[in-house]
C-alpha cells in the first residue's frame, strides 16, 4: 500500500520537477529575442511589433510553471522564526492544518476559476489586446495546468505530512 503510494508521490515529484526544468529554458529564448530586437531597432532601424510581446508571454509561462517545482524543493519562503523551533512532528501538524485551510483554498480556487477562464478563452479564440494580437489561450492553458500541478504537488506534500504524523515514516 505505502509502496504504491510512494510511487505515485514520486511521480508527482518528477512531474513538477521536469515541467519546471523544461520551461526554465524559456529564459534563453527571451534573452535571444530581446537581443535580436535591440539589434533590429538600433542598428537595422527595423524593429518588430511583436518581439516584446512574445517575450512577455514567454515570461508569463516561465515563472508560473515553476511554482510546483519550487514547492517540491521547499523553496517557497516562510517566516520560520517560530517554525524552525518546532519538532519535526509539530512542523508536519502545523503544515497539515494550514495547508488544508490556506494553501488548498488558494490553489483550489485558482484551479477552479482559472480553468473556466482558460476554457472560455479557447471558446472565443481570445487574442491579446495589442494590434499584433497573438492567441492568448495557449498561455492561459499553461497557467491553468500550472495551478493543477501546484495543487498536485501540495497534495503530495500533505499526504507525506499525514503519513509522517500517523506512522512516523517519511516517504
Amino acid at each position, binding site marked *: 500500500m505505502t509502496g504504491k503510494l510512494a510511487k505515485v508521490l514520486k511521480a508527482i515529484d518528477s512531474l513538477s520537477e521536469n515541467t519546471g526544468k523544461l520551461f526554465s529554458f524559456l529564459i534563453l529564448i527571451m534573452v535571444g529575442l530581446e537581443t535580436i530586437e535591440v539589434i533590429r*531597432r538600433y542598428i537595422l*532601424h*527595423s*524593429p518588430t*511589433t511583436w518581439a*516584446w*510581446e512574445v517575450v512577455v508571454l514567454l515570461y508569463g509561462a516561465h515563472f508560473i510553471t515553476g511554482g510546483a517545482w519550487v514547492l517540491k524543493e521547499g523553496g517557497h519562503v516562510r517566516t520560520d522564526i517560530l517554525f524552525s523551533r518546532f519538532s519535526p512532528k509539530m512542523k508536519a501538524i502545523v503544515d497539515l492544518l494550514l495547508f488544508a485551510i490556506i494553501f488548498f483554498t488558494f490553489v483550489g480556487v485558482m484551479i477552479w476559476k482559472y480553468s473556466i477562464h482558460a476554457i472560455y478563452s479557447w471558446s*472565443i479564440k*481570445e*487574442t*491579446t*489586446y*495589442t*494590434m*499584433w*494580437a497573438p492567441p*492568448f489561450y495557449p498561455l492561459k492553458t499553461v497557467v491553468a495546468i500550472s495551478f493543477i500541478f501546484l495543487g498536485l504537488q501540495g497534495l503530495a506534500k500533505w499526504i507525506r505530512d499525514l503519513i509522517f504524523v500517523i506512522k512516523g515514516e517519511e516517504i
Partner: protein
Amino acid sequence: ATGCGGNQATSGQGSATSGSSSSSGTMAKQPEFVWRMQVIHNTGQSDFEQNKQTAEKIYKATNGRLKIEVHPNGTFASSMEAFQAAGDGVFEMLSSWPIYAKGIDYAFVPLGTGNLTMDAHDKWVWVYEAGGWDLLQKAFDKINLKLLAVEIWGTEVLMANQPFKSIEEMKGKKMRTSDPRLLEKNGVAAITMPLEEVFTAMSTGAVDMAEFGNLDWNKGIGLTDVAKYGIWPDFWNVHFITTVVVNKNAWNKLPPDIQQIVEMAFQSDELKHWTRSQYRSAITMKELEKSGKMQFVRMPEEQFIKLREQMYEIEQEDIKKYGGLTAEVYQSLYKFMEDWYPYKDIARWWGWGLTPEQQLGYQPKK
C-alpha cells in the same frame, strides 16, 4: 447589496466616494446597494474626478440608496483585463477604453478608435444617430455588460524629438504607438511599448516620437519635459471612445427608479471629457510655447489623402479576416460617412480652414 464597504461617509479622498453628510435626514442610513467602480484614470485625472462627482450625484439623487465607490485604474484589474472583470462581476461598474477588450472581439477596434478615421464630433453623430450605440451594446453583450454612457476623446498630439513635417520624414524613425498598422506600411518603425517603458525610451532617445494622449494629459506625466516638438494632426487615434459599462446582473437587481437616475447621471456629463481635455490642451500649448519649452508643428493635410486610401485597404483586410461584428461595424461606419460627408461638406462651418485672426475678425494683442 454588498456587505462591506463602509457606512461612514467620508469625503474628499481617494478610493472611496462619499455621500455628503450635509443633506437632510431623508438619506437612507445604510445604502441598499454598494457598488465598486473602476475607472481608467488615476486620482486627480479627469476620468476619475468626473466619475467620482457623478457617483456623488447619484448618492444624493437616490437618497443614499445607491452608493458607488470609485476606484482608480488597476485597483482590481489592469486596464486590459477590466472589461472582462466587470462582466465576471468582480466589480459592478467600469469606465474605460473598449479597445482594451479587442481580444474578445476585434470589432472593439473600429468601434473605439482608428487610424485616419473620423473626428470626435462625427463619431458622436454616428454613435447616437446612425447605429453606433446598438453596435457597441452588441459587442458588450458578449461579456455580460450593459452600456451606460459613451465619452469620445478628441485629438491627441505626437510628442517628438524632431519637427517632422511628413510621414515621409518619419521613415526609419522609431515611433511608439498603440496602432502600428498604417505606420508599418509607410516605413515608420512602429513600436507598441507600454507606458512603463515609454518614458525612459523617450527621454533617452530609444524612440524618436510617441503618441500617448492629448497635450494636457501628456504634460501631466511629464512627457512634455522630454519632447521638444508637438505634432498634429492626429492620424493615429483621431478619436478615442471611453465607455461606462455596468455588469448586467448587478444592473438587473436595481429598481427602475434607481436605474433611471444612474443612466441620467452618467449620460449628463458625457461631453465634458472632450471639452475639458481639448480646452486644457489649448491652454497648455499656449504656456509651453510661451516658455519656449516646446514648439508645435502641423503637418500639411494633402499627404493624408493617400494614407486614407491605404487605411481603407487595411480596413478591408480586417473585414476579410474577422468578419462578423467587425464587418457590421465597418459597414455601418461607411454607410454613415456616405450619408454624412456630402452634407457636412456643403453645410460646413464658415470658418473652416481660416487663420485664428480671420476667425476672430481682429488682431489679438500678443
